[in-house]
Structures are given as C-alpha cells and as structure tokens.
C-alpha cells in the first residue's frame, strides 16, 4: 500500500506535464513551492494502481472527486461501544444535529438491509454502505457482520465500509477480509498514551475496564496493530483523527507519519465538535474546537505524508445520500418497511455510467481552464467559497446553500480544501440579517463566493465584508470557473486596480444538515 503514497510527482514548474497524468487531480499541483506532491484523495486513474482506483473511484469518502457524484449511506445497527471518548455522548439524539455518533433509530440487520435496498433504488448514486456506529461496529460484531453479509448477497454492487475505534480490530481482521469489506476507517487521535489519557477516560478490554494511561496504551497498540494487519491484506484504510486544540493538535503530524508508515491510504483530520448542549465531557468543560485557519494549517502541515482528506462532513451514523446533503429523514424505518422495493442493478449501472460521463466532462473542463495558465506563475493563492448542490457545478443559490465548498486557487489550479456549513439564509422567501453575518463569518477567509444566484442585500453585505460575490459562472464547472475568475483577479492586481491581501480567519460551524423532508 505504501507504494501509492508519493506517486504522481511532477517536475517543478512544468504545468503541462503535471496536468496530463493527473486528470481531475490538479491538487498535486499546488505544492509547487515544496517541489513535491503526493496523490491525495482526489487521485485519479493513472496515478493509482488500477485495482486501487477501482476501489476508490466511486467512494465519496475515499475520493474527493467522487464525493460530488456518488452517495453513501450509513446504517445504525451497532449501538454498543467498548471505549469512551471525551468528545462523544451516546445518550442524546437531536434531530437537528449532524454529528458523528448520533442516530435517530437503531436498526436490526434485517431492517438495515431493507433500508439499503430502498435507498439504493431511490438514490441510484448510492455506492457505499458504511457501518459506523453510533457505538463501535466491532463491539457489536454479530449485528455488523450479519448486516454486511445480507447486503453483499442482496446488492453485490454496493461497496462495504466499516468504521471502528480499533480496540477490537486485530481480532476481526480475518472476518473483515472474508466479508469483502474493502474499506476500513480507524479513528486514531494519538499515538502517545499520555495524550490518549486526556481523550479517553476508559476502555473495556478483556473483560476489564482500564483507565488512564494503561487504557490509552492498550488502545493505541491495538489500533496500530490492526492498521498494519489490514494493510498487509490489501484492505484500504483511512485514518480519522479529531483535532483537539491544546491536546493533540501539534501531535497529529506525528500521527500522520505513524499511520503512513503502517500503510494508511488516507488521513482525515477533522475538527472537534464541541458544544455544552451535546453533553460531552469536552463540551461541558469548555474545550473548544479549532478555527478554520488552524485546521487548514494542520492539514497543510501533513501534506506530503498520507493523502489528506478534506471533504469529510463528519456525518451522522445514519446519514444517507450525497456527502453534505443528507436525506436520512426520508428513510425512517417505518416508511422503509412499507416500501415495495424492487432492486434493479441494471438501472443503477446505467445511471452510474451517466455519472461517469459527467465526471469526465468536469475533468476535461478543468484541464481546459488550467491550460490558460500555461507559462504563467504567481505567488498569490486565494480561497474562494462555492455554493453547490453537487456534480461539480456552481448550481446553488446563495440563500439556499447549506454549506459552501472552499477551494484554494493558485496558478497551479484549484484545489478543494474544505467546506463550511451554514444555516440556510433564505427561509420562506426572506433572508435573516443575523444569519447573514454568521454566513459571512464562516467564509471570511475567502476572497470570493461563487453562486448560481444571489439577492441584492446579501450581495452588498458581502462586498462590504471584502468578499466578491460572483454569479457570472452560474451552472458552470467549479474549477474551470474558479480558474477563470482567478485570471481576471491576477490581471486586476497587475494593473494596480486592486491590491492583493491575505484575508482573516473563519468560523467552523456545525449545524442542521439534516433535511426537513
């Protein structure tokens, strides 16, 4: 697996060379200044060995390119857990909340299968089934593996994906391999037991409760051992880490190296979600999450190690649909059980072929956009925010956006670096002033906001905040448009019409991503 990392190098400055093999993966290009690049999650065919590309190209979490086009679903069959994390509270479920570990209903394996078939039929972009709790799937091995086996039989075209804290992992590696699970996510927040003791109050292992450093040491050892065992068997591993300021923030660079050396395919550093009303230890003792700038700085510091994942939405354990656009509430189990589902793999296949064609068009478009830069170099990089409903297009109204996707643009191309959740500004036809200012705060580090449409009031407010609202690329491809806009920006800077300046920090917000329907 290690061979994957570090491929896709290109020669400094030779844009042409870089664009050819990377297809939709201009991301590699952004490390011009360091002169080296690793393939990130968006890596496209041509850089990755074919069999790995096959595994990731339709997985919205493993391939950043795929997350615009394909959908995943989680089923909550595994409520028990064998460790306690200070950022988790399994006691409360709030319908308005989107955070990992939270679910509205727990399913039996049989109910889960019916739900998978219903969702895959109604949302044909669904390519991945994940079991991610709300507890630890491997603390509920019977329910977890039974669900996977039933799904594998009923819908063999769906990829199976498992997310675990790793404590029980070494015991189940063989079962995982046998169950045709191709993707495993392990949450590893630290490799230092002293730090671990601040994150995990206890673990339950070998019929005993362990606390403090002993607990953290056992957990760390088991996680790393499990990761190694999976890599040896060729199962793709993603490592999730929660960035907790003052506890593990600097240390995560070490974690990145450690998991890379053990074959992790992707590293996903997520911000701590912490609010008093969540009732978690961190929420109650005032532990803050990181700012957008701190998170991005850490992710940047880890570039060049394991591929960085930047599009994670930390979705609920019962999330359904495209990443960032949850449709879970359409599929509550009472409704699902009443549905008459006819699962048709042919229909799904035809649909997904269409999606692939769309994707290829997007790749071609951004390549075209990049070609305009050939020979041009600039030190300037800016962030822009995009209102999108998916498919890689600027196709959402400012007032309807539930999140903005953030791209970093330079003369090497546009690279996806994150997303910002917001509360929908326009509700029932009128916008709310308060919300507008929080939306502006959440994209305050961006120079421009790309939208399909925007009203007069938010437009002038954005301009006043120093952010350019851009609606002239409505319904066009994000990256191509961003590059075109950047060209004109650079020209204006050259002509002295505007002065380039870095912008400030922005807020990371967690909000209602759960659709009301």
């Amino acid at each position, binding site marked *: 697996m290690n061979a994957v990392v570090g491929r896709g190098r290109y020669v400094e400055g030779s844009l042409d060379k870089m664009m050819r093999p990377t297809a939709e993966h201009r991301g590699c290009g952004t490390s011009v200044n360091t002169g080296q690049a690793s393939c990130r999650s968006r890596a496209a065919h041509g850089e990755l060995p074919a069999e790995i590309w096959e595994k990731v190209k339709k997985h919205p979490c493993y391939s950043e390119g795929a997350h615009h086009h394909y959908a995943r679903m989680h089923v909550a069959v595994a*409520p*028990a*857990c*064998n460790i*306690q994390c200070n950022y988790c509270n*399994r*006691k409360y479920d709030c319908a308005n909340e989107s955070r990992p570990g939270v679910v509205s209903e*727990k399913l039996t394996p049989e109910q889960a299968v019916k739900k998978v078939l219903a969702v895959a039929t109604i949302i044909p972009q669904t390519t991945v089934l994940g079991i991610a709790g709300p*507890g630890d799937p491997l*603390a*509920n091995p*019977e329910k977890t593996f039974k669900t996977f086996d039933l799904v594998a039989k009923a819908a063999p075209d769906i990829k199976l994906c498992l997310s675990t804290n790793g404590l029980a992992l070494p015991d189940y590696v063989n079962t995982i391999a046998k169950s045709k699970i191709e993707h495993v996510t392990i949450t590893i927040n630290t490799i230092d037991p002293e730090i671990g003791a601040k994150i995990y109050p206890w673990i*339950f292992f070998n*019929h*005993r*409760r362990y606390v403090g450093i002993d607990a953290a040491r056992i957990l760390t050892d088991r996680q790393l051992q499990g990761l190694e065992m999976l890599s040896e068997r060729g199962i793709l591993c993603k490592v999730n880490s929660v960035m907790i300021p003052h506890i593990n923030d600097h240390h995560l660079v070490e974690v990145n190296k450690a998991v890379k050396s053990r074959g992790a395919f992707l590293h996903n550093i997520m911000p701590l979600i912490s609010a008093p009303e969540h009732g978690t230890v961190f929420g109650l003792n005032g532990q803050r999450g990181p700012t957008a700038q701190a998170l991005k700085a850490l992710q940047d510091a880890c570039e060049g190690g394991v591929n960085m994942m930047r599009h994670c939405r930390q979705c609920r354990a019962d999330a359904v649909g495209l990443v960032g656009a949850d449709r879970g509430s359409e599929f509550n189990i009472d409704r699902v059980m009443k549905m008459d589902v006819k699962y048709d793999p042919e229909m799904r296949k035809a649909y997904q072929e269409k999606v692939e064609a769309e994707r290829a068009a997007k790749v071609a478009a951004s390549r075209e956009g990049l070609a305009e830069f050939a020979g041009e170099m600039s030190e300037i990089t800016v962030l822009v925010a995009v209102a999108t409903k998916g498919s890689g297009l600027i196709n959402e109204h400012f007032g309807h956006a539930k999140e903005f996707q953030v791209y970093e643009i330079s003369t090497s191309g546009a690279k996806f670096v994150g997303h910002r959740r917001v509360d929908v500004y326009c509700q029932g036809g009128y916008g709310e002033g308060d919300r507008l200012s929080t939306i502006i705060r959440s994209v305050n580090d961006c120079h421009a906001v790309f939208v399909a449409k925007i009203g007069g009031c938010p437009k002038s407010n954005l301009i006043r905040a120093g952010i350019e609202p851009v609606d002239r690329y409505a319904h066009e491809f994000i990256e191509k448009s961003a590059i075109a806009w950047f060209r004109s920006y650079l020209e204006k800077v050259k002509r002295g019409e505007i002065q380039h300046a870095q912008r400030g920090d922005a807020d990371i917000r967690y909000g209602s991503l759960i659709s009301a329907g």
Partner: protein
Amino acid sequence: MPFKIIASQCTSCSACEPLCPNVAISESAGRFVIEPAKCTECIGHFDEPQCVAACPVDGTCVIDTSLPRYQAPS
C-alpha cells in the same frame, strides 16, 4: 445482591447484554433488564461485574440492595 439497571439512565446501547456470563440481561421492546435470579454478580467468572464495566453511563448498572447477596457456590 444482584445487579439491576436503572431504566431512566439506560441508553439501550446493548453493550452489557452479550457480556453477561449468565445470560441474565435481556431486551424487550428496547428496554434492558437484569433477571435477579440469574445474576451472580459475575463472581467466579470475572474480576468485575461485566455489565458495570461495560456500561457507558456510570451509575446505571447498580447493586439491588433490596435483594439478598448472591452466594458463590463453594
């Protein structure tokens, strides 16, 4: 004294159920209960009562003082 589950605190997570060496814990309609006659406080099996050690909500699996102590077979 067998253990009991304080229903108002239980999250119905099911962590305790498969761990009980005596199959004393069962679920019905999403509620978990311990059958007092079957609970041995884990004596002779494990160092700690398994339901207590595994339960994520402290103070949910507790000793039921209204019932007599379990006598471990000698």
